[in-house]
């Protein structure tokens, strides 16, 4: 690569290859160009790798429903019929999206309510047992969901004598288990954000006569707003994407969440899988998330790297 820009002039064959290389090195132009080209190529590859399968979903959703598995790269003819199928009465997809929004919003609000004060304490205050609390919270984002699913399933179906409830197909049956991963995620991210704010801010406020509570409310909360916002997005996405609890506890078509609903689309007969409609539903579920992610990408990346979790 490096020798391309310096050809051997006539009568100077006595220059060995090594000498040529050393002559070339300080200039480095050839190498640099090659490097830039290589990195651009790499970038292009990464983008294609990440986007192409998603693009395939969009393309597949835009075909005629009868051509669900066609492998043509451009749908011919282009059609939005699949989207009509998604939103027709039978699939109840509107209700499913509504359920998803409700569950995600309530869970996110609850985690924020509990998490914000806990995160502040963990980021700012010194107390014995802090390491234990942090370990418990991080441990919660490590354990497998299936471990709590078994007893919760037994609980919510009223299988325990000491808990005569039937919460199957009630929203709380999906909201409560979602707290198990939503709350640690929320606390962890907020703690990371609160740590980034200089402690001098509160100290100055307190010197000026603020109580710790006022300092928190008037100084810290407004400054942490971007961090809180990011945490809300991350928690919301995590709850929105949850599948196992929602599938188990909300099997009723009227209470189902959107991811569960789309995974259970059926065609006219058992052997007729509506590929196009499933893809269209996938696009409907994903596009709002993607829009959110693309608009706030800088913050989300900051949140992901600060929290380092999920």
């Amino acid at each position, binding site marked *: 690569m490096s020798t391309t820009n310096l050809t051997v002039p006539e009568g100077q064959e006595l220059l060995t290859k090594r000498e040529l290389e050393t002559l070339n090195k300080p200039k480095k132009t050839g190498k640099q160009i090659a490097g830039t080209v290589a990195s651009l190529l*790499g970038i292009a590859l990464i983008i294609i790798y990440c986007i192409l399968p998603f693009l395939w979903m969009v393309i597949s959703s835009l075909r005629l429903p009868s051509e669900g598995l066609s*492998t043509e790269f451009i749908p011919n003819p282009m059609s939005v019929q699949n989207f009509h199928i998604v939103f027709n009465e039978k699939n109840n997809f509107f209700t499913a999206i509504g359920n998803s929004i409700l569950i995600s919003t309530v869970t996110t609000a609850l985690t924020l309510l509990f998490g914000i004060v806990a995160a502040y304490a963990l980021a700012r*205050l010194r107390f014995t047992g802090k390491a234990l609390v942090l370990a418990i919270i991080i441990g919660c984002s490590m354990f497998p969901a299936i*471990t709590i699913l*078994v007893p919760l399933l037994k*609980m919510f179906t009223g299988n325990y004598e000491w808990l005569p409830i039937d919460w199957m197909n009630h929203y709380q049956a999906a909201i409560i288990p979602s707290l198990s991963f939503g709350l*640690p995620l929320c606390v962890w991210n907020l703690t990371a954000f609160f740590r980034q704010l200089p402690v001098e801010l509160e100290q100055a406020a307190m010197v000026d006569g603020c109580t710790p509570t006022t300092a928190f409310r008037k100084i810290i909360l407004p400054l942490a707003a971007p961090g809180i916002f990011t945490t809300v997005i991350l928690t919301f996405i995590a709850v929105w994407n949850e599948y196992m609890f929602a599938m188990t506890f909300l099997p009723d078509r009227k209470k189902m969440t959107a991811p569960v609903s789309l995974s259970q689309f059926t065609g006219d007969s058992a052997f007729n899988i509506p590929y196009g409609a499933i893809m269209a539903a996938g696009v409907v579920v994903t596009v709002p998330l993607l829009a959110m992610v693309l608009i706030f990408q800088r913050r989300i990346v900051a949140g992901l790297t600060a929290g380092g979790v999920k």
Partner: protein
Amino acid sequence: MVTAVETQGASSRKAKKNALSDGQGTLAWILVAPTLAVILFVVGIPIVLSVIESFYKTSNGIDPTTGMAETGTKFVGLENYLNALTSNSTAVDGVFGSMPRLMNAFVNNVWFTVICVVIETILGVAMALIMARAFKGTGLVRAAILVPWAIPTIVSAKLWFVIFQADGVANKILGKEILWLGDSSASQLAVIMADVWKTAPFIGLLTLAGLQTIPAEVYEAAKVDGATAWQQFTRITLPMVKPALVVAVLFRTLDTMRMFDLPYGLIGPNKYSVETLSMFAYNEAVSQRYGPAAAYSILLFLLICLVAFLFIKLLGADVVGDDETRAKTAQRKRMRALHKQQVKRTKANQTITSGESAA
């Protein structure tokens, strides 16, 4: 540097309260209590119940000895665990041969975890290195990289489900007729590819954040010293991104170990070639065999605890990442070292011990 003298001074002033933490303890616990209470109720109690459950067996039907309808549960000790591990009556044919269903799920779990995490880490680091080089257009790349992450796992499962159909686009591109979604090693490959697609970019993103904290001067200095590109990578880049990378890999490992949505949505339930422990336990739970389901989920739980422990002990994953906690751990270490030194000195020379009673 905190010297031994300072540490001793600190410990001798123990009675005096720390000005910085005066009265904060109570407030902190009040603020943390609601969160801990929620965690206790949604995680702590269910886990305990799950452990208890795993020692019981639900018997639906009539007790042969008493003739009464048995609605309750029966304590069976470790039977749920042992049955699944030893009895050959449940043998299934997975990719790795015929073995008890639990063993099969366990082997699948370990296999998926190892292969996925290795590929994802290598691919992720490579992506991060490329992205770190390209100074322009990072916004676009970052946006692209967030796409697989933001797509719900079940949607990506269905997306690959379409791609991997027998007459789907994957076979068209390869020019082969592979039955990806049949119950075979090809379906394992399908799951691995779908998982790598979804998470390798994410590892890349986290590694990139680690890369960007390395100052350019370090590389310049290395170049002046004549380090090759490979040396720069192994001696500078890797050690400096290691803390971020180890934590990311730890979380990816634990995430892959509890994998459920992807094989469930892509290949389906009761497919032994891709069945993971989560899927098997889920299958038992919805069949109302709560005892075995709980036992399998507890096995997975213990496995995950073991892996997390190994990561933290062997690779030094700093999961908590809190300065105060870190400082306390460091101090405890110093005190222990100091104590050891003193013991040694005491043994060597009995006269030096006076006045050194710290630790």
